[in-house]
């Protein structure tokens, strides 16, 4: 592009300096160990030594019904888990952020903190608290439903195959609504007041203002939230594990890729961990998530316009 007479650009060392610490720590402590683990998927432990077997672990994973049935089940459940988050968690998060960011709202700090409280709790606490609440024995949920005259609708949700996954997804939504809320809130606050004021003068108020002015300006943040939800959901493990155990009962109805991977990799109860098959599952999870992230990075993100304020 430039004329030949132009001198070469000097090397921009600062880019390296900015990247170096993160890249070094991250590579040494995260990427190398993980790569080491994922390559196990190409090996098999035979007589206490690792033997290269190519893709045969993957053949087992997809060919052997003992593995494939579980894998597809976990994947299906995981997709449902994700759908619920996208349909419930993110809209609620956006709604709450939109309400919170309305100017001069009283108690905004209180609401924001309160709504974020579940997000800061550990899975142990969340799992435990909700098991207690939904437990038919302790009776909080039936009590409450009695209160509004819906007691007849109560069932032991966490114990029923048809409800357990949805119930847990909703618990997870409850826990994580704070994250989309905070991100959107930060994005909304960075919209200049004057643009909003111009809209007020233009007669674009209330809902219309949200849809036509604010939403387009926070779309990049919504994009981020969607991809973070996707990544988070396909990596999810802890909540199911603390609430339903590693076997993700009843009858594997709450089994997602994370729990499936955990059982395979680390073993469970009498089941001895199989790092090779575990690595094969992890590789599949990784590829699924990577595909999603690439779709986002290369198809979605480049199309979302960002505005500088």
């Amino acid at each position, binding site marked *: 592009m430039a004329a030949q007479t132009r001198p070469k650009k000097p090397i921009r060392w600062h880019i390296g300096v900015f990247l170096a610490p993160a890249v070094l720590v991250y590579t040494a402590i995260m990427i190398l*160990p993980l790569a080491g683990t994922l390559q196990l998927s190409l090996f098999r432990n035979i007589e206490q030594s690792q033997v290269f077997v190519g893709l045969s672990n993957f053949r087992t994973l997809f060919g052997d019904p003992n593995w494939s049935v579980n894998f597809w089940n976990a994947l299906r459940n995981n997709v449902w888990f994700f759908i619920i988050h996208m349909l419930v968690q993110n809209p609620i998060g956006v709604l709450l952020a939109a309400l919170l960011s309305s100017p001069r709202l009283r108690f905004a700090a209180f609401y924001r903190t309160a709504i974020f409280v579940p997000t800061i709790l550990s899975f142990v*606490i969340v799992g435990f608290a909700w098991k207690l609440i939904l437990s038919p024995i302790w009776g909080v949920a039936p009590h409450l439903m009695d209160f509004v005259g819906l007691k007849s609708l109560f069932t032991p949700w966490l114990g029923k195959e048809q409800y357990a996954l949805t119930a847990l997804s909703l618990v997870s939504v409850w826990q994580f*609504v704070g994250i989309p809320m905070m991100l959107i809130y930060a994005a909304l606050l960075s919209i200049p*007041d004057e643009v909003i004021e111009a809209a007020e003068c233009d007669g674009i108020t209330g809902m219309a203002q949200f849809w036509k002015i604010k939403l387009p300006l926070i779309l990049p943040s919504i994009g981020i939230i969607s991809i973070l939800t996707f990544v988070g959901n396909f*990596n999810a493990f802890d909540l199911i594990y603390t609430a339903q155990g590693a076997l993700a009962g009843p009858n594997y109805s709450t089994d997602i890729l994370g729990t499936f991977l955990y059982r395979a990799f680390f073993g469970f109860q009498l089941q001895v961990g199989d790092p090779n098959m575990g690595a094969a599952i992890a590789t599949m999870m990784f590829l699924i998530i990577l595909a999603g992230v690439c779709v986002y990075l290369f198809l979605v993100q480049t199309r979302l316009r960002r505005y500088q304020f």
Partner: protein
Amino acid sequence: MSTATHSLPRTIGAHAVLLTYTAIALFPVILVIMNSFKSRAGIFGAPLTPPTPKTFDLIGYTTVIGQGDFIHYFQNSLVVTVASLFFVLLFGAMAAFALSEYRFRGNTMMGLYLALGIMIPIRLGTVAILQLMVASGLVNTLTALILVYTAQGLPLAVFILSEFMKQVSDDLKNAGRIDGLSEYTIFFRLVLPLVRPSMATVAVFTMIPIWNDLWFPLILAPSEETKTVTLGAQLFLGQFVTNWNAILAALSLAILPVLILYVIFSRQLIRGITSGAVK
């Protein structure tokens, strides 16, 4: 903005929605805390009523306190969380700035590379990480935890921060360049202060999993000197599976510190927002 831009029904509506959701968000937490102050019979008999003189009982707390040196565990957690947070935010913001500000070959690939970390649970790398720490003699030190958490927190931080950094006005950075500021100064003096709200957001996101993590303290630093609060609490959670007084008390105690930390950060966040939103 002015009162004229507000309508009363809309304000009431907003409060109604927020209050409802606040109730949903807080209910389980309040339930746990409330019942932690009740006797066993009280917990089961009337879970929804606050402690009455008859059901009030601190037995749970007396059981829990004195189960180990919790002040010390707390210090450990604090050191680990704050130090990791510092490095995640610093390194993460630096890398995010490089990715969002400069166009260079491999920019997107570098972004993707730095995002790989959120796609695989770091747990899977445990053995290699542990070997690394054993080799470098860092087992049972807080440094090991700080390193791991820093690595673990970076991908998300870079991902979110680079998005927010793209919103900082070019003219502003250019004004800095014209003013003779080096790229480093532009980053530290101009960009960092302006993305403070998102830094605070990222800080909160990063802090939670670190504070709540069980696995790495268990593997890398389980010794009495380096134990974290969560690990300490988990141990006696296991111990009292059926002692609900103790469990509820332990849960309540576990909620407190992280709540305090969060409130501190969110203060920062508000301050960041009010000073950063100046356009």
